Each structure stands twice: as structure tokens, then as C-alpha cells.
């Protein structure tokens, strides 16, 4: 039997899996329980394209053999890396628990699992890399996890983002949970958050 695992698949994982995973999860929990809060995961992994560092770290922390991952423009190197470190396989949109897409649009409400009224948790978490979490379009947030209202700024979104969010929120308790990443930073918009364009 020949050993064919490439070096790129083996490199770049967590140096200390138990503690790095806990650190990433703790920040992710902060992000999703306080929507709009930007958290920095730090430099904890090197993930192959098209995954950004934050996306790679998130998958290393909570993806495994039970969670098919859909990647819009995947690569062989990334699939190998993910399989080696987490055991997760690349799957179809309809079965994805994590989806890495280029932009959030209504198309994904038809292709990704939204959960059912009986089991709304059986829905995908969507990861989108944006140009910036500090400048660009302003959006106002309200809902659980937010004291009154808060504001986020995102760059690199299509015009139909507000419309997508409206359609997504209308599905509550079903719907997609969004995580915007930029380098090693991320912010989360769970389905419960009401997003309006400023």
C-alpha cells in the first residue's frame, strides 16, 4: 500500500488540538451569542485555499465525520486537508452542515438544509469570506443577544443581502446561520437576528 497523503494535507492543523479547538469555540460562542461582535481567532492554523484562516479554524474546531461540508469552489488540496484533520467529507449542498459560499444570496435558501419545524437545528451554517468587517455597508442588528440595537459594517456583499436576510428571518425557527469571516476574524448572524440596511 502506498502512502499518498500530500504534505499540504498534513501541515497547518492545530498545534494543540484540545486547547486550540476550545479557544476557537469560545470565540465562536461569543460571536453567535452576541451577533455582530467581531472576534479574532488569532493565527492558529494554515488552511489551503479557498478556506480563509478563520474558516479553516472553525472547521477544525467543530467539523467531523458527521458533518458534510459543501464548498462552492472547492479544491483537491482543501478536501484532503479537511479529511486529514477533521474526517469531514465534501458533500452536496442538500446535505451540508457547513457551507462555504462566495456570497449569501436567496439561491442558498433553496439549496442548503434549512431544518424543519420539528427539527430546526438540522440546518446549515454558512461561511462567507468578505473583504472587510470594518468598512463598507452598514447594517443595523436587533434580536436575541443584542442589547437594544447594534451596527455592523461589511464590505463585498451583493445588493440583495438585506433581501436574503429578510427571507431567511421569515423562516424562523428554520433558516441558515451566517458566519462572515475576514482573515482570522469573524462575526456571526444567527437566523434569529433581524438585519436592516442603514
Amino acid at each position, binding site marked *: 500500500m502506498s502512502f499518498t497523503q500530500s504534505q499540504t494535507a498534513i501541515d497547518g492543523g492545530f498545534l494543540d*488540538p*484540545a*486547547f486550540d*479547538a*476550545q*479557544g476557537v*469555540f*469560545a470565540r*465562536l*460562542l461569543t460571536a*453567535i*451569542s*452576541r451577533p455582530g461582535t467581531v472576534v479574532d481567532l488569532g493565527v492558529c492554523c494554515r488552511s489551503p485555499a479557498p478556506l480563509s484562516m478563520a474558516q479553516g479554524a472553525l472547521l477544525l*474546531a*467543530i*467539523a*467531523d465525520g*458527521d*458533518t458534510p461540508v459543501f464548498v462552492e469552489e472547492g479544491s483537491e488540496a482543501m478536501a484532503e486537508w479537511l479529511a486529514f484533520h477533521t474526517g469531514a467529507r465534501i458533500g452536496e449542498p442538500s446535505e451540508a*452542515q457547513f457551507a462555504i459560499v462566495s456570497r449569501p444570496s436567496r439561491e442558498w435558501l433553496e439549496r442548503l438544509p434549512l431544518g*424543519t*419545524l*420539528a*427539527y*430546526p*437545528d438540522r*440546518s446549515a*451554517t454558512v461561511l462567507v469570506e468578505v473583504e472587510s468587517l470594518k468598512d463598507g455597508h452598514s447594517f443595523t442588528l436587533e*434580536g*436575541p*443577544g*443584542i*442589547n*437594544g440595537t447594534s451596527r455592523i459594517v461589511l464590505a463585498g456583499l451583493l445588493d440583495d443581502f438585506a433581501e436574503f436576510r429578510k427571507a431567511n428571518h421569515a423562516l*424562523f*425557527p428554520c433558516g441558515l*446561520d451566517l458566519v462572515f469571516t475576514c482573515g482570522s476574524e469573524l462575526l456571526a448572524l*444567527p*437566523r*434569529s437576528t433581524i438585519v436592516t440596511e442603514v
Partner: protein
Amino acid sequence: MNATLPAYNFAYLDEQTKRMIRRAILKAVAIPGYQVPFASREMPMPYGWGTGGVQVTASVIGPDDILKVIDQGSDDTTNAVSIRAFFARVANVAVTTKTVEATVIQTRHRIPETPLSEGQILVYQVPIPEPLRFLEPRETETRIMHALEEYGLMHVKLYEDIAQNGHIATTYAYPVKVEGRYVMDPSPIPKFDNPKMDDCPALQLFGAGREQRIYAIPPHTRIESLDFEDHPFRVQEFDRPCGLCGATDVYLDEIVTDDRGGRLFACSDTDYCEERRERAA
């Protein structure tokens, strides 16, 4: 090789289990009040002793966290002491009895009197997570009732209380509605604590080990205790102050002091009571 072999993974649970629980926690936070099923593990303690809370705490806690564990408000009962010792040993985390110092507080049946703050996590141990279970024993049915937001039965139950007793007689595990959607069991906390859940700045996580459910309330979430316009929700009132610290706006325990009918009413939250006495001294 090191003479002391590591006997456990950090925080006892294996990494695979933590990933599964962490995913359940994230979905629970995204759908406030909805009970997310999870593959609960056997823990080195019997069901009913907080296996759900322990699994949630083990999945959340990190080396920099400071853990407090309370049982009915008290830091020094068997359940609280054992769980605190358990995490001090398997996760090597700092432990405290002071509410203000803790970053993670695991609780059985109380919310601390000291207001919680941003960044803290309150982990509840939950025996029966389904608020409708005693009204409808079938899981398939209660799941549909939650899906369709069909909570009439719960109001009938509260109404029957009024019809029989003249007031709503439910005093603990008093059902709440989370952000206007899911009816949720707040675990068997006294209804005295229900108002503390509303708009709470801390993250509240609930773990039911035997029943295999995790649910959550994000910070600053609207929590309403179910009631009627003509019978509004009211908390317990006590006709005397705490016998030790003199506090009047707290939940009191009745403590038998002798075999001649002696009674002491004292704060159920031992940390709060001690703090007040230290400040007065």
C-alpha cells in the same frame, strides 16, 4: 516518559464528543428556547446529579476560566463540591465561590442573587427539559406542539391552578416564553428567579443529560413568564428578612435548627449572604 500519565483528556470528555456538544450549543443559541437533541454521554456520576450541566460545562470551559458551582444557591453542598472538585481535577481550572469572579457558573436550581454580567456563562442542570411533558407524555406530540407553537395546553394547566386554588400554584420550573416563540422549562428554579432570566447580560445554557437535550438563552433575550391579564405573574414574597444577613429582597431557605421547632430563614445564595455579612462586619 513522564511518570504521571495523563488519565483524562482536558475537561474529561474526548474531543469528538466536545465537537458534537459544541455544535449542539451553537444551534441552541441560534434558536433560543428550542431543545437541541444531543448524544449525551455517560459521566462518572449518576443521572440526576447534573450530567447534562457537566457535559455543557466541559465543552465550554477553557484553561483561563474560573468556575463556580452552586446547588440550590449553595456552594458547599455535596453536588456543588463534587462537581467543582471534578473540574479542578480534570480541567485544572481555577474555582471560586464568588459570583462576581466566576466566568462559568454551573447551577442546580437557582440563579445567583448578585446580578450576572456580560461575558459570564450560566450553565443549568436540567432534569426534565420538556415543559409540556407532564401534560403530554409523547415526545412525538410535544415536538409537533413546539413546531406549531401550540401552547394552549399549558395555559389550560395554569388556568386549572387558578380554578382550584384561586391563584397560579406553580412555584418552581415555572414555564417561560423565549423571545415570543418557544415555551421553555427554566429548570426547577423557584419562580422567584424567573425575572432574572429576562434581558440577562450573561449567556444561559441548559443541559439535560438523561433526556439528551441542550437549549440556550442568548444575552439580552426577552423572557416572559406565562400568565393571564387578570392573574399576572408574581414571584414569592417573604414576610421576614434573612436571619443571618438581614436581606429582604432574596430567596430564603427554611433551616431546622433544633428538635423543638426552631426555624431559621436564611439566604439560599450562600455567597450573597456571606458577602453581605462581611461588608456589615
